[in-house]
């Protein structure tokens, strides 16, 4: 039985926690501490700064900011921190979770509802956690005739591809996981993986509705990738670079949306289609093909695909911000780090703590992150809004929109960019 708590009682839960704590202390006291003592007899401890490093000294250093801050800074400079925490997965997942909450509450306000309300005291803020727990506790059902290895791998690949997409996004000056010169090309390459993963998942389920949904997703993503790439070419021409950090840095005085509004509109529409959001959610059209290519996915496999979808949503919104809205550029609103702390230290009553290694983050980085997050949340709001306003469109309308209108508009955008370049409005001697 995959039931997480048939008769859940808070008192018993706390009791079980206390039981665990008791047994941990018991085992540490009886086995752990004697073992450490025996090891300390054998090993010769190192001498650091003229002091013998004893376990007690090591513990006191954890509480000493002048010792711990350089370690934290060194850790923040590592790749693992960037991938896992700040510009990478953790930051993106946090924004994605916020997106889901905003989406639910905003749609509810639009539709005469209250939305999630009970879980987590304040306006159902923990609803997402509850949903996640539910998905984890559910049984994963695999269709009998499915191609099992591929069917298992597809959701994981989906999340992996979405996370790879997140890695290209520069959040603040110098804060990017993969600062490659061909960044935009890398983004296109990663986007190219999504239709393959989708059709793999749909085909391996060996079921009719996922198959139709997968074919629709394939049509949609492949036909909208062309206007997507073309709509970004104008910006590449004007900046002369494929590096996303350079593209963001080039918009210090004007964001490109001022000069290339047509490209921004085309990119926004193709973005909606790539994300399979209403009005382009044909691959998951409920009343026609149940849940499209997600029909046979269950439990945490479905949860992984949802996680990947929202990571992808964040990444596309961030790409829009970086390419068209100026990325981290914005007026300086974050106050500078107080100078007296750097010079004199913090006065704590009789003691004055002089902490080297401050500030942890530079002013530029904090300000850039703030503007980046504000702009991204704004773009995400506009991505979510059509869900409350539009019905779903049909496959033939979708394809004619992608292949004729959007590609035409993307070329118009390229000509505008070329015109601006040759007229000398932008480029050397121009505005930027």
């Amino acid at each position, binding site marked *: 039985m995959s039931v997480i708590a048939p008769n859940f009682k808070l008192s018993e839960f706390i009791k079980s926690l206390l039981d665990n704590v008791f047994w941990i202390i018991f085992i540490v006291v009886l086995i752990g501490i004697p073992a450490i003592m025996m090891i300390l007899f054998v090993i010769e401890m190192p001498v650091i700064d003229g002091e013998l490093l004893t376990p007690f000294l090591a513990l006191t250093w954890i509480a000493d900011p002048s010792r711990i801050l350089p370690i934290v800074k060194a850790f923040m400079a590592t790749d693992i921190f960037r991938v896992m925490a700040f510009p990478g997965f953790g930051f993106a997942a946090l924004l994605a979770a916020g997106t889901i909450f905003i989406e639910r509450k905003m749609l509810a306000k639009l539709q005469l509802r209250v939305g999630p309300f009970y879980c987590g005291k304040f306006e159902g803020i923990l609803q997402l956690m509850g949903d996640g727990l539910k998905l984890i506790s559910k049984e994963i059902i695999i269709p009998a005739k499915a191609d099992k290895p591929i069917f298992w791998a597809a959701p994981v690949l989906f999340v992996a591809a979405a996370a790879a997409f997140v890695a290209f996004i520069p959040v603040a000056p110098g804060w990017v996981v993969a600062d490659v010169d061909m960044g935009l090309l890398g983004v296109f390459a990663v986007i190219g993986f999504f239709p393959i993963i989708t059709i793999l998942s749909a085909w391996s389920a060996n079921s009719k509705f996922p198959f139709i949904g997968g074919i629709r997703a394939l049509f949609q993503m492949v036909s909208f990738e062309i206007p997507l790439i073309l709509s970004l070419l104008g910006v590449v021409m004007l900046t002369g670079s494929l590096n996303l950090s350079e593209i963001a840095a080039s918009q210090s005085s004007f964001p490109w949306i001022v000069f290339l509004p047509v490209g921004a509109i085309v990119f926004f529409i193709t973005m909606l289609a790539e994300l399979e959001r209403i009005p382009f959610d044909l691959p998951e059209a*409920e009343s026609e093909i149940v849940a499209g290519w997600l029909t046979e996915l269950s439990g945490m496999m479905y949860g992984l695909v949802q996680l990947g979808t929202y990571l992808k949503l964040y990444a596309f919104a961030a790409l829009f911000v970086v390419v068209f809205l100026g990325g981290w550029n914005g007026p300086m609103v974050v106050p500078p780090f107080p100078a007296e702390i750097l010079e004199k230290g913090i006065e704590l009553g009789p003691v004055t703590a002089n902490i080297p290694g401050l500030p942890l983050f530079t002013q530029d980085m904090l300000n850039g992150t703030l503007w980046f997050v504000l702009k991204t949340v704004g773009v995400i709001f506009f991505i979510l809004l059509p869900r409350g*306003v539009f019905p779903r*469109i049909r496959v033939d309308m979708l394809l004619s929109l992608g292949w004729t209108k959007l590609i035409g508009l993307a070329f118009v955008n390229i000509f505008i960019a070329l015109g601006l370049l040759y007229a000398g409005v932008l480029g050397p001697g121009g505005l930027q």
Partner: protein
Amino acid sequence: MTFNLPPGLALQKVDERIMTLNVGPQHPGSGHMRIIVQIDGDYIVACDPDPGYVHRGEEKMAEYRNYITNIPHLERPVIHDSCNVLYPYVLGAEELLGIEVPERAKYVRVIASELNRCIYIMYWLAIYGIFLGHSTMFMWPAGDRELLIDLMEKMTGARVTHAHFVPGGVRNDLPPNFEDVCLRQVNYFEKRIKEYAAVFYDNPILISRTRDTGILSRQDAIRYGTTGSVLRASGVDYDLRVKEPYDVYDELDVHTNVMKEGDSYARSRIPWLDMMESCNIIRQALQKMPKSGSVRVKLKPNPKTKGLESVYKRVESGRGSLGCYIVSDAKTEPYRVKLSVPSFRNLIALPNLLKGEKLGNMPSVYWSLNYWPVEADR
């Protein structure tokens, strides 16, 4: 692989390109029925609707209950249109039992019937919205429906299955101050449904999606025997409230909404216009209703009919003309009750409308037929 098929059966030969989809009965876009759809790519080549999953034997049950106890179960086929489903039965039973209904009761019936029509259409519209992927159009009608449901609750005491119409009038008189409350709620309701135009009916994506899909021509609409909004959307001016007025509809000014297109958009717009017309009728009825008087003729405990006779009455329900044929044989129970339901008539048009359409049009065409599966199976 060889089969020894029983005599008289043969395996059906199916083209390799054709994929057969079972849409229903456990499918979010079907209701309590199944549509067997054969598709070639994205085009539907054949469609076979398969109702009957919720058959409950209402007609047979009616032969074992007397004229009064038949009321609560005969409204079950369409619980959110329960007054209109019961209306023809009550009219027929009154004729068989020879009862003259008081004037005030007739107006109360008209008000209840029109309110119920709006409640049904709102429910239908909510599902039409979600079938097209428009979740706001699912929530708004479902929420605004509450206005009228509250009115019905004040009037009858029940929110959904009212059992309000009885042979000889209605069960209870209106509560005090009902007229004012009703007028206020209905006015607000009308203002509210006019707002739907901005978000739904004038939405360019909706129009481009449902225009010119599933076109039912005027001749076909008459030939298949469709009724109600489907018939009126194909350009036939046919409304039983005007053509065969029952109770006091001949004293009220009823306007019939007709559209000529016959496509799925017209079929979805006609019920919306009907709701505004219902609001008009309710306002007229509230104005013309006698302010006091009896609303019910007292019947004997087990009323008997006079002899072997039959009666056929029909009314305009939320889905179209709904008929009830009652045969009596001088007993307390009817000999036979037959419901002639509009849902089944409208469903007959479905295979012909879906043939050659795209799969994406299936939900919008199917639900625009104003079809309620439970009523078709009764």
